[in-house]
């Protein structure tokens, strides 16, 4: 059986669950959840890199995990210029080819700025990053980012930390239908069933943070999301039966048309 591999640029991943690393009650709890989730790609905010104090540093402990690649993110940047600088510093420290480009000028709802994100993506692609931009679920923006060379797009399901699920489902379906690069649903997911749902829609991966970090048992929730993502992906590749508005009659009403009178 062929292994189901996700390719982002030249990077190959067998897990389709990406994890965010903030909001956990301890670094230990975060590491356990990362392990339980089977993820191979985690994102860390540059602002949580702390070389001066090991206990406050998220990067150090994650960099020691085997089979887990790091994707620095630019959270905290308010415009393209800041995001580019954060990405450069993140690469220098982590040596990772990935960057999760996120620019949210409003620190309260943390919704992404499409204009600044597009500007920053152009520059970061030029600088040979694998750019994964966190974006509003906008099918036109997704294609524009694909056109300039982004490695994937990460539309939001709902605002970060809200747990409102796939509020943007109709737009995400269009993004998936049109995309030639991986589509990763980022933000908003609350439950493994929603992750499964995103995968059934044809999304290539999901990124989860709050739903796992804020769960009663983060490590168990990490494992549950793994199962949800795997189930959704299997269902997608198995081919879901088409939906229908009406029951399909077992004796078709038009059978008389093919009978030889």
């Amino acid at each position: 059986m062929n292994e189901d591999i996700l390719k982002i640029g030249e990077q190959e991943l067998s897990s389709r669950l990406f994890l965010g690393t903030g909001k956990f009650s301890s670094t230990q709890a975060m590491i356990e959840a990362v392990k339980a989730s089977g993820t191979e790609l985690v994102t860390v905010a540059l602002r949580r890199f702390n070389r001066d104090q090991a206990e406050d540093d998220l990067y150090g402990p994650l960099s020691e995990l085997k089979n887990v690649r790091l994707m620095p993110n630019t959270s905290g940047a308010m415009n393209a210029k800041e995001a580019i600088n954060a990405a450069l510093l993140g690469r220098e420290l982590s040596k990772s080819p990935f960057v999760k480009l996120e620019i949210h000028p409003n620190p309260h709802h943390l919704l992404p700025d499409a204009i600044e994100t597009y500007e920053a993506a152009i520059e970061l692609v030029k600088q040979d990053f694998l750019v994964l931009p966190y974006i509003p679920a906008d099918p036109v923006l997704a294609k524009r980012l694909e056109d300039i060379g982004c490695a994937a797009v990460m539309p939001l399901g709902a605002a970060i930390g809200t747990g409102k699920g796939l509020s943007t489902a109709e737009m995400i379906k269009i993004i998936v239908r049109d995309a030639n690069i991986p589509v990763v649903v980022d933000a908003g997911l609350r439950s493994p069933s929603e992750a499964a749902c995103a995968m059934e829609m044809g999304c290539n991966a999901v990124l989860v943070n709050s739903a796992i970090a804020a769960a009663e048992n983060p490590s168990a929730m990490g494992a549950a999301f793994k199962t949800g993502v795997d189930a959704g992906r299997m269902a997608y590749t198995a081919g879901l039966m088409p939906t229908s508005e009406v029951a399909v009659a077992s004796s078709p009403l038009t059978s008389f048309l093919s009978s030889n009178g």
Partner: protein
Amino acid sequence: MANFSPQSTQRDSEQKKPLPSSETSGNTLPDWLNPEPWLNLEFTATDVQRALHADSPNEKTLATLLSPAAEEFLEPMAQRAQAITRRHFGRTVQLYTPLYLSNYCNGGCAYCGLAADRKATRTVLDPEHLRHEMEAIKKMHLEELVLLTGERMPEADISYLRNCIAIAAEYIHNVNIEVFPMSESEYRQLANVGCTGVTLYQETYDPVVYEKMHRWGAKRDYFQRLEAPDRALRGGLRTIGIGALLGLANPRHDMLCVYRHAKYLLKNYWQSGVSISFPRIRPQLGGFQPEFPVDEKMLAQYTFALRICLPEVPLVLSTREPQRVRDGMAGLGISKMSVASKTTVGGYSDDSDESTEQFEISDDRNIPEFCAMLKSKGLEPIFKNWDATYREPAAYAKN
């Protein structure tokens, strides 16, 4: 008030804004701030139940949750506040510490131990001493700092602050100020040398009490202070911390005004971070007795109410509060706390005279002790949550 919003005023912050018109009868507050419609309403237990489960909390929700009817619902309010805090901020508490640069003051705040007519040893940090303080703070691994002074004085003016901010920014990532209100261009000068944010409490939003409490000096000008956050944000600061000094006036009035002020700033400066603190009057030099004492239950109720109505706004609790209250409130609405605070000038690097302190610290635990408490409650202390990369993007680009 037509002339109050930033869109309708000139960007020249030196220009004095007109006082509110007489249409706000009985109260001189502008309409956007005036909480009168929500005061003195009667709420029932049913109203509180409904407010607790509001899908989209609004001002009525807040008025309900601040009301006496909600006093019986502290436990469900705490549970809801904790759930919202956990969802939005995770199981974390962000740490910062204050650093007093100067206690020279010509102000006449009736409640302050460092007002001009109080006997206090006046002192100001020189650059060399500031470096010692910064080294001591850096050793504690803190990465967020608030620099404090009294009112504008020759000993601690804008050029002094500019120098201090530049020094502090050499050591740690996130440098903020809690000083006197200034002009937009002065705020911009401070932003340009590495200042990230401003904390400025209105003290009380009740203009009558405000006038009584501020006996002389520049601080008597209520609107000059009220509009300072506008000027700071227009001047390039990223964050603004607001609050009312609980105990001075009717706390429900002040909490409603804090909410209205926060909403106003969020709407008009959509890229800015707004946070709210809950300073309560504590014992200090001068022995001021608050007319509207706020007890611990009230403090908790107001904090929960604001968390429920402003889910995304950081809520801050300082070391003014006793250990028991701080331990209990961590994560229950509160998402950010000061730690290891010294309210004396030069307090981090040497044993300074206690008669220079602004108020008594009620929680004098050191950082490991405080972090151990947070961890025992399943909360992670965060030291660094911002990066100096964002302070001066051009600096990195040059390399």
